[in-house]
C-alpha cells in the first residue's frame, strides 16, 4: 500500500540535500505491460527459445519470456531481448494483450526526503582460479550453484546430483575462502563472514538429501562460527560425521569420470591427495562494479575494499547526509545482521524525517461491511492449481465440480494461482456480484496466505473472519503419490471446510490505544542508543539502569575495531541522554514486577533508597547487557600480571607507563568460550586481542607479542587487523581444546607452555604480561524473562522471535531486544541492533493504536464454576477473575491457542472462530 515497487530500474543521480532529494532513474523495458500481465505463464509455455537460466546459475534453461521464480513479486513476465528471436508467438497466445515489442526505456524522477542504499554484493567469480579448474571441470561448482542444486525449485528439483553425469556424488569437498582472505588470485583480503556457516549448512543438508551415505569434507583455514548458535551447529556437524580439514587446497585436478583430485598440504607439512566426486567452492562476496559506479555518482565514500564507508558509532550513515546504508554493501555480513541494519537505517531515516511522518502515505479506503448475520449462507469455493503443485497430483476440476454440489455452495471456480493479484480482483467482484457471504479457498496454508485472502474479503465488503482454507497442497498433493486417493482426500478437506464455513460468524478485531511511552531497561550503549533514537523522533522514554552510572560495558572499552575512541563517544552519549528533554533516566533502579500487554504495560521498580514507584508504558526494550567472565585458570587472580581483555583496555585508557616496559606479552584466546560447559563463541575476543596486540606493538615495536588461539575469527573487514598484526611480527600459535596452554611462575617472570602444531613440539614462552580473552557471560535474566514471558536460550541469552527475520523482536508483542543481552557483539553491532529495536518499536508507536485479533476466547459467566483452571493453564495470563468472581478473558493478551477452552470442565469457554459447533460440523462431515 505504501510501498511502490519499481523494478527493472536503475538509479542515475541524486540531487538536493537531506530532507529533499530529487532522484533521476531509468526504467528499462520489460517488453511486457506490467499492468496487464496476469502472470499466467502462457507466453513462456509457447516461447521456442532455449536460453541459459541465470537464476539457477546456468544449471538449466529457460525461455526468452520468463519470470525468475514461481513466487516472484511482482508476478510479471519479462522478455529477455538478448535471447528473443522475435518470432511473435507470445503475442498471439497472450490473452491479456500485454506483449509490447516496441517498449522503450523511460526516464523518471522521484522527490524523496532520504535514500537508503541496499544493493548488496555480488558473489565472487572463481573462473580465474585456474588451479581449481572451475571453468573446465563441470563437477567443480560454486556454493551458490550448490544452493540451487539442493533447492526443491532448483534445476534438479532438490535431488542431490552432480552436473557432469547427474549421478549422486558419494564424496563432496568444500573449499573455503575462495575469493576471500586472499590477495593472490583475488583482490579480496577481507573475510566474507558467511561462507563457513553456509558451507557447514550445505554439507549437513547434502547429507540429509543423499540416498546413500555421503562423505562430506570441509577444507578451511579457520572455522568462523562466531554468531548466535553457530558454534553449536558446527559441533553438531562434526557429530554428523562431516570432516573438517585445516588446509588451504592448492590444486584441484581432473581425475577421470568427472571426479576431482584435491592436492593439499596438511598442518604437519605433509603433501596429501584425495579424490572427490564433486567440489564446492565456497565463494565470497565483493562489491560489484555497478555499485561502485553508483556510489561514485551519488558522492558516497567507499572504504579500501569498496564497501560503503561508515563509522562505528553511526553504522548506517554514509558520508553524504540523508543517504543511509544497510546490508552487505556496507561490509560482508549475514542475514540477521542485514535485517538489523535495515531496521537501523529505517530508524536513522525516521529521525531525519520525523516532522513529515504520515504526510505522503495513503490510507486504504474500505467499503462498508455488509451485515450477514442471520442470512442464509452463500458459500463461494475457489480451488487452486498452485501451478502444478496441486494439479500435478490432484484432479482440480473434479474437486471444483464436487464442491458445486455441497450444501450452501452457490459459486465455484478453479484458478492457476488463487493467490495471484488478478484472482484477488476477480474474487472481490464475484463476492459482490453473487452475494457470497462465506468464502472457502482450497489451496495452501493459512499460515502464509490467510491474511491475503482476508484482505480480499475486506475489499469486497464482508467480514474477514467469514473465511476458511482447506490445505490441499501441504497436507495433500505434496505428501501423497496416488492421484486418485489424493483427489478424494482433497474432496474430504473441501467438504470439511465448507461445513465449517456455513457456521462461521463475523468477528470483531479490537482496537486499543497505545501508551506512547517506552521503557528501556539497561543504560549501556545499546539502551542509550535505542532511547535516544526514540526520543529524537518525539517519543518519551524512561531509561532504567541498575547501577549508579550510565555507560555499561562501554565504560571499560578502549577502541572500536576501526580505531575510534569508545570513551569519548560514551561520554558524549551519556551527556546527550541525560540532557534529553524526552528521556527520564532512573539510575540505581531495579524492576520488581510487570503487568499488562502491548500498548499498556505497568511496571514496578525500587530505586537506590528502597523507594517503590511504578511507570506506565506501551513498549519495552530489553538492553540489559552482559559481562566479562572472571576466569579461574591460567593463574588469574593469583598473579597480577595475568589480566583480562577489559583489564588491558583499562591500562590503555590510562595510558599506563608500565605497558612500555613489557618485553613479552601473550594473549590466550577462548578463555571460558567454546568449552563444553559454555559452548558458544564470544565473537568479539579475537578482534579485541589482535587489536590490543597491535597497540602493544605500536607502543614498543621491540616487544614480543604472541596470540595463542583455536581459530582466529576476525570476520569481515576485521581481517585487515589480523593481516596487519602478522605483518608487524605478532606470532600466532594455534592450540587444541584437549591440549590447552599452561601458565606458571618462572623466577621473576611468567612462563607459558603450549604445543606448536606446525613444529609439532612443545614451546615455552617467557612473558611479562598475559591477557586472557575471557568469555562474555549473560546476566541473570530469569526474572526478566518471567516478567515479560520471553524465552532464554541454553546459554542464558534472550531468544529473539526468529533468528533470521525477527532479530530484535520477541514473540511477546511490544517487547524488543538489543545489545549484549541478545548475544556478544561489538559496539557498532550493538548500535545497529539498538537502532533496529527503536525502528520496530516506532512501527507500533507511529500508529498510536494496536489491533487485537477477533479470534480469541470468550467466557460464559453463567456456566463458569470459578475453578481457576483457565487462569492457571494460560501461558499468556489472559484469563482472570472479574469483580464478580467469574473467569473473564483479556482479549489483548489472548493468542487464541485454545488451551483454556479445551481444559474448561464446565464448557464455559468458547474460542471464537473455532466454536465447538464448527469443529463438530467438520468432524461429522469426514
Amino acid at each position, binding site marked *: 500500500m505504501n510501498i*511502490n515497487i519499481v*523494478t527493472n530500474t*536503475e538509479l542515475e543521480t541524486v540531487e538536493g540535500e537531506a*530532507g529533499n532529494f530529487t532522484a533521476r532513474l531509468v526504467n528499462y523495458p520489460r517488453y511486457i505491460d506490467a499492468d496487464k500481465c496476469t502472470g499466467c505463464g502462457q507466453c513462456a509455455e509457447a516461447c521456442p527459445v532455449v536460453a541459459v537460466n541465470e537464476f539457477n546459475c546456468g544449471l538449466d534453461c529457460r525461455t526468452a519470456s520468463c*519470470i525468475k521464480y514461481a513466487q516472484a513479486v511482482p508476478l510479471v513476465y519479462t522478455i529477455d531481448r538478448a535471447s528473443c528471436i522475435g518470432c511473435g508467438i507470445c503475442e498471439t497466445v497472450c490473452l491479456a494483450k500485454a506483449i509490447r515489442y516496441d517498449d522503450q526505456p523511460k526516464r523518471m524522477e522521484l522527490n524523496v526526503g532520504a535514500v*537508503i542504499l541496499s544493493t548488496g554484493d555480488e558473489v565472487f567469480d572463481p573462473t580465474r582460479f585456474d588451479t581449481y579448474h572451475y571453468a573446465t571441470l563441470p563437477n567443480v561448482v560454486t556454493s551458490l550453484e550448490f544452493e540451487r542444486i539442493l533447492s526443491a525449485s532448483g534445476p534438479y528439483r532438490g535431488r542431490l546430483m552432480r552436473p557432469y553425469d547427474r549421478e549422486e556424488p558419494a564424496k563432496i569437498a568444500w573449499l573455503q575462502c575462495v575469493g576471500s582472505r586472499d590477495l593472490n588470485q583475488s583482490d579480496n583480503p577481507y573475510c566474507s563472514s558467511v561462507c563457513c556457516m553456509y558451507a557447514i549448512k550445505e554439507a549437513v543438508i547434502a547429507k540429509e538429501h543423499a540416498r546413500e551415505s555421503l562423505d562430506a569434507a570441509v577444507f578451511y583455514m579457520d572455522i568462523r562460527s562466531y554468531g548466535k548458535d553457530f558454534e553449536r551447529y558446527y559441533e553438531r556437524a562434526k557429530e554428523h560425521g562431516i570432516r573438517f580439514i585445516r588446509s588451504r587446497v592448492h590444486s584441484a585436478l581432473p581425475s577421470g569420470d568427472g571426479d576431482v583430485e584435491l592436492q593439499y598440504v596438511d598442518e604437519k607439512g605433509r603433501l596429501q591427495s584425495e579424490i572427490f566426486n564433486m567440489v564446492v567452492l565456497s565463494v565470497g562476496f565483493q562489491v560489484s562494479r555497478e555499485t561502485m559506479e553508483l556510489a561514485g555518482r551519488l558522492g558516497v565514500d567507499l572504504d579500501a575494499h569498496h564497501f560503503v564507508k561508515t563509522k562505528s558509532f553511526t553504522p548506517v550513515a554514509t558520508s553524504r547526509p540523508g543517504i543511509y546504508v544497510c546490508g552487505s554493501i556496507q561490509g560482508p555480513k549475514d542475514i540477521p545482521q542485514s535485517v538489523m541494519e535495515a531496521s537501523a537505517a529505517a530508524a536513522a531515516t525516521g529521525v531525519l524525517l520525523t516532522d513529515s511522518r*504520515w504526510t505522503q502515505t495513503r490510507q486504504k479506503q474500505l467499503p462498508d461491511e455488509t451485515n450477514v448475520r442471520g442470512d442464509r449462507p452463500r458459500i463461494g469455493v475457489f480451488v487452486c492449481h498452485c501451478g502444478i503443485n496441486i494439479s500435478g497430483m490432484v484432479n482440480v476440476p473434479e474437486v471444483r465440480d464436487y464442491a458445486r454440489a455441497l450444501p450452501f455452495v452457490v459459486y465455484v471456480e478453479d484458478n492457476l494461482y488463487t493467490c495471484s493479484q488478478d484472482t484477488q480482483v476477480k474474487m472481490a467482484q464475484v463476492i459482490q456480484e453473487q452475494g457470497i457471504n462465506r468464502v472457502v479457498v482450497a489451496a495452501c496454508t493459512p499460515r502464509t496466505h490467510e491474511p491475503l485472502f482476508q484482505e480480499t474479503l475486506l475489499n469486497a465488503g464482508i467480514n474477514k473472519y467469514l473465511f476458511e482454507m482447506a490445505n490441499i497442497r501441504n497436507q495433500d498433493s505434496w505428501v501423497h503419490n496416488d492421484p486418485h486417493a489424493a483427489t478424494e482426500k482433497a474432496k474430504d478437506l473441501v467438504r470439511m471446510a465448507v461445513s465449517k464455513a456455513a457456521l462461521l460468524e463475523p468477528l470483531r478485531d479490537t482496537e486499543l490505544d497505545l501508551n506512547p511511552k517506552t521503557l528501556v531497561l539497561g543504560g549501556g550503549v545499546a539502551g542509550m542508543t535505542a532511547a535516544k533514537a526514540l526520543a529524537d523522533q518525539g517519543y518519551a522514554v524512561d531509561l532504567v539502569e541498575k547501577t549508579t552510572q550510565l555507560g555499561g560495558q562501554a565504560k571499560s572499552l578502549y577502541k572500536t575495531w576501526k580505531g575510534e575512541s569508545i570513551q569519548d563517544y560514551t561520554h558524549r552519549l551519556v551527556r546527550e541522554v541525560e540532557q534529553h528533554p524526552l528521556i527520564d533516566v532512573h539510575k540505581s533502579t531495579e524492576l520488581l514486577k510487570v503487568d499488562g500487554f502491548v500498548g499498556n504495560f505497568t511496571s514496578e521498580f525500587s530505586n537506590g533508597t528502597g523507594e517503590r514507584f511504578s511507570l506506565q508504558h506501551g513498549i519495552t526494550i530489553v538492553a540489559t547487557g552482559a559481562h566479562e567472565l572472571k576466569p579461574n585458570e591460567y593463574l588469574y587472580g593469583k598473579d597480577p600480571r595475568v589480566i583480562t581483555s577489559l583489564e588491558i583496555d583499562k591500562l590503555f585508557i590510562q595510558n599506563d607507563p608500565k605497558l612500555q616496559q613489557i618485553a613479552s606479552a601473550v594473549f590466550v584466546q577462548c578463555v571460558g568460550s567454546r568449552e563444553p560447559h559454555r559452548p558458544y563463541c564470544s565473537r568479539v575476543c579475537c578482534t579485541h586481542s589482535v587489536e590490543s596486540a597491535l597497540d602493544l606493538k605500536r607502543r614498543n615495536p621491540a616487544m614480543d607479542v604472541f596470540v595463542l588461539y583455536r581459530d582466529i575469527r576476525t570476520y569481515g573487514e576485521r581481517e585487515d587487523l589480523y593481516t596487519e598484526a602478522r605483518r608487524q611480527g605478532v606470532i600466532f600459535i594455534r592450540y587444541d581444546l584437549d591440549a590447552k596452554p599452561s601458565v606458571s611462575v618462572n623466577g621473576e617472570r611468567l612462563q607459558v607452555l603450549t604445543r606448536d602444531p606446525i613444529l609439532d613440539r612443545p614451546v615455552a614462552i617467557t612473558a611479562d604480561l598475559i591477557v586472557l580473552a575471557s568469555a562474555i557471560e549473560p546476566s541473570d535474566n530469569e526474572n526478566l524473562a518471567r516478567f515479560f514471558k520471553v524465552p532464554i536460550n541454553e546459554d542464558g541469552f534472550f531468544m529473539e522471535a526468529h533468528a533470521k527475520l525477527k532479530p530484535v523482536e520477541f514473540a511477546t508483542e511490544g517487547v524488543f531486544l538489543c545489545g549484549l543481552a541478545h548475544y556478544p557483539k561489538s559496539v557498532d553491532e550493538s548500535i545497529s541492533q539498538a537502532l533496529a529495536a527503536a525502528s520496530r518499536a516506532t512501527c507500533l508507536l507511529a500508529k498510536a493504536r494496536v489491533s487485537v485479533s477477533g479470534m480469541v476466547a470468550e467466557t460464559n459467566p453463567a456456566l463458569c464454576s470459578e475453578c481457576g483452571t483457565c487462569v492457571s493453564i494460560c501461558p499468556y495470563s489472559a484469563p482472570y477473575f472479574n469483580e464478580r468472581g467469574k473467569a473473564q478473558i483479556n482479549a489483548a493478551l489472548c493468542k487464541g491457542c485454545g488451551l483454556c477452552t479445551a481444559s474448561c470442565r464446565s464448557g464455559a469457554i468458547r474460542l471464537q472462530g473455532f466454536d465447538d459447533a464448527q469443529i463438530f460440523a467438520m468432524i461429522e462431515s469426514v
Partner: protein
Amino acid sequence: MMTQLANTQKIGSVMVVGAGIAGMQAALDLADSGYYVHLVDRSPCIGGLMAQLDKTFPTNDCAM
C-alpha cells in the same frame, strides 16, 4: 530563515535502492512507521540473493 524553511519542507517519502532482504526490511519498517517508500531494484523482481538460497541455518528454514 533558509534552514527553517528547509526543515518544514522535508519530504515524507524515502527511496530504497536494492530490494534484497535488507532493502525489503527497510521498506517495510518505513512504510509501517508513516513514510511512503519507493523500493527500486535493477532486476525484474524483488528478493535479491536470498531468494536463490535453499535453506538457512541454524533453523534450516526455507529461505524463500
